[in-house]
């Protein structure tokens, strides 16, 4: 009896010690995590807070984590003295066009490969898979030559066209359409629906989440694209905003508040899209990495 009680006491003392140990260890880890996150995000904070300082405060030789005089000067300056508004419009037009076209092209092609039998189907599928390996950056010279031949250098269409190659969208749609039970298809066929109605009224709406995820990630990618828009636009009025803000640098030298105000304006739309659709962005990244979520 006594032995049993002692034994019981031992266990509970051991347990409570373990719990206390865990709590301290766990708390320390949480604290480290928070500190690491703050350090990781600090460059973002530092850039944003700099844009609200007047230029003479920016270059003072000590660290000020908050502006002494809060001003929107740099934003006003960059809107008035650069073509950033024009670049913004260009970015919106090209990004939305690329998003719509990539999703449309990917959905129709993915549907055909998944649901229809036609000569060359397997060949097409293998080529889509193989194109994953090809570095699109190797094609910049020939893309430029093609665009020059059809006189699309320095045009928005010229920016859009090479960015329409997105085999991964075809792959994702094919996989999702594959997993829809044939019953749906046969029932709709009985009711006299044709292939286009099947795709746009049944298959696409059933995968609306996938479409949203792909559209969001395509939009972010198109908004952020640098190499191709940078090569194909040599005149300022046709630039996208991500390319345009690097030309501001030449004009201003080291006026960091203005430069960073341009950067904040450029990054804001994608940051907002991410914060609004966090779960969809995560899903899209899983999808494009080949992890079906």
């Amino acid at each position, binding site marked *: 009896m006594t032995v049993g009680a002692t034994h019981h006491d031992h266990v509970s003392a051991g347990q409570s010690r373990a719990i206390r140990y865990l709590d301290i260890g766990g708390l320390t880890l949480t604290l480290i995590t928070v500190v690491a996150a703050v350090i990781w995000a600090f460059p973002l904070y530092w*850039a944003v807070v700099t844009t609200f300082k007047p230029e003479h405060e*920016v270059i003072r030789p000590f660290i000020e984590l908050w502006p002494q005089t809060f001003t929107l000067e740099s934003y006003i300056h960059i809107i008035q003295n650069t073509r950033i508004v024009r670049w913004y419009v260009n970015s919106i037009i090209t990004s939305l066009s690329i998003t719509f076209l990539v999703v449309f092209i990917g959905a129709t092609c993915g549907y055909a490969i998944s649901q229809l039998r036609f000569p060359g189907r397997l060949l097409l599928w293998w080529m889509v898979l193989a*194109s994953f390996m090809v570095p699109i*950056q190797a094609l910049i010279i020939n893309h430029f030559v093609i665009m020059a031949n059809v006189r699309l250098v320095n045009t928005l269409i010229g920016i859009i066209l090479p960015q329409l*190659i997105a085999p991964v969208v075809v792959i994702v749609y094919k996989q999702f359409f594959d997993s829809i039970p044939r019953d749906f298809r046969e029932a709709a066929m009985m009711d006299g629906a044709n292939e286009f109605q099947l795709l746009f009224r049944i298959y696409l709406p059933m995968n609306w989440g996938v479409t949203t995820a792909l559209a969001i990630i395509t939009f972010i990618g198109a908004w952020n694209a640098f190499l191709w828009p940078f*090569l194909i636009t040599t005149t300022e009025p046709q630039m996208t905003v991500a390319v345009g803000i690097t030309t501001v640098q030449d004009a201003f030298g080291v006026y960091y508040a203005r*430069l960073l105000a341009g950067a904040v304006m450029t990054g804001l739309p994608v940051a907002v899209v*991410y914060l609004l659709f966090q779960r969809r962005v995560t899903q899209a990244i899983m999808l494009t990495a080949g992890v079906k979520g």
Partner: protein
Amino acid sequence: MLKSRRSEALVALVLVAPFVIIYGWLFIYPTIQMVNLSFTNAPLIGTGEGVGFDNYERLASDRVFKTAVWNTGYFVLLTVIPGTIVALAIALMVSRLRGYLQSMILAAFFLPFILPVTVVFLIWQWMTDVNFGILQYLLEPIVGEKVAVWRRAAWFLPMAALVTVWWTNGFSILLFLAGLRNISSEIYEAAELDGAGRWRQFVSITWPLIWPVTALCLTIQLILQLRIFDQVYLFSLGGRTNQTMVLVQYIYEQAFVHNRGGFGATVAVALFLIVVIVSVLQYQALRARGER
């Protein structure tokens, strides 16, 4: 029956047409043209004469090309493995948290990933500015002086790698988090009952079970970083680019700056082959692992 099959093929043709046209015109055709161009001395725009394998012979003895290959490999080494380790560490830390705290912490680590490269460039140019950059407060006590990190060859690629890891790590973090979520908590509970501590649990449970995700991250990062251009180009603006040259940048310089389309295409073919060979090797390695 025959008629319905023919109409099915016709519908399919209409549906795949947009993709096939774009793909043929802007993917297959330029790939073939790239190879053709590499056998000529053409400028960027305009025609040149066939020169056989001259460009390839020149490439083999080209010093800057060797530097570019070396730098690209060095950059891959600096980003892929350290980046993956950091991503795993962050994912482990974030996966312990719950609720709002987790979303906020994850957003802090992930947000850089969705920003355009030019924004990342401007932020870090400001962070590292030789006169006013906040990072100089950290570097000065260690190095003994302010460091123009983008003007010193020894600093350039490691710093570019640091910025790249900061920028792109969100991607790997998400993959790791999904992988960690798939490990059943029962395994950890059982291990805890057996008295296994945190480190023991990581070594015996987490690491072996997360290895497939680790392999995926390494694969994706490797292929991605071989194509490095944007950051390296932007940070090298106004400096001596020959020392910090990477492969895609060399294609750009030869074709678009020096107007040597033919030779630029030769560099592009080299990049193309390197990426395809690495991809195939990696695919084989992963498949061998899967079949074992």
